[in-house]
């Protein structure tokens, strides 16, 4: 899983640098986020601009991060979803769970 982590406006921003999140790399993403949370990075924004495909295991990895961050009074939000990726959150009603922002500026205004 190619990704980049940056601290911005008090948040840990994960830039996913893959076009595809599926069962081949979602386990790695889940572990990475879990490791961050265990080390106290509990305000996380996942930037999904490069991602044009996500499957159920990818949604599961993000949901795992959301639940683990929430358990430590933190938050995991999403930003820059492509329309078809967003439609997967809508189909599973996970758009009611995650805060999903159009861009990082909007995310910082609400999360930072």
């Amino acid at each position, binding site marked *: 899983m190619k990704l980049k982590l940056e601290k911005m406006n008090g948040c840990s921003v994960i830039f996913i640098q893959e076009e595809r999140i*599926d069962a*081949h790399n979602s386990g790695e993403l889940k572990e990475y986020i879990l490791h961050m949370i265990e080390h106290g990075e509990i305000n996380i924004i996942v930037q999904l601009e490069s991602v044009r495909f996500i499957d*159920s295991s990818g949604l599961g*990895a993000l949901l795992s991060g959301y639940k683990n961050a929430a358990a430590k009074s933190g938050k995991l939000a999403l930003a820059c979803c492509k329309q*078809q990726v967003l439609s*997967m959150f809508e189909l*599973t*009603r996970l758009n009611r769970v995650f805060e999903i922002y159009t861009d990082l500026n909007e995310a910082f205004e609400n999360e930072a």
Partner: protein
Amino acid sequence: MCNSVLQVDVIIPTQTKYLDLIGSIGEHIAKDLDDFSGDREALAYHLNLVLTEATTNAIKHATLMTPKDTVRITIHIQDNELNIKVYDHGQGFDLETVPLPDFDQPKESGMGLYFIRTLMDSVTYTKKSDCNVLEIIKHL
């Protein structure tokens, strides 16, 4: 309407690195269909997703049994019907007992079959003596 006739037959090792390949085949098929009047981009994503989910299931079932197993995937289009079959050699499962996801208390797993059932027109799972077949049909 779609009048294409197409048959694809692929056998892959039970490794998740091949999911991209299988999903991409579905995406390409959707984009190259003749006489398809629906939302081609949506169909491309849905076929990518359904093939990815079905193959992931087969890989998971098979890997538990024999690590050097293979998964066979066939895609057949004829008379406006797209038919996907995914063959696994695992213990199999009862499709009818797989519950819908609980949207009020979402879980990290269990969404794959929901996607397949929601996006396609018919899904069956048949246990045979030498393998199991997940058959998915979509009317184009």
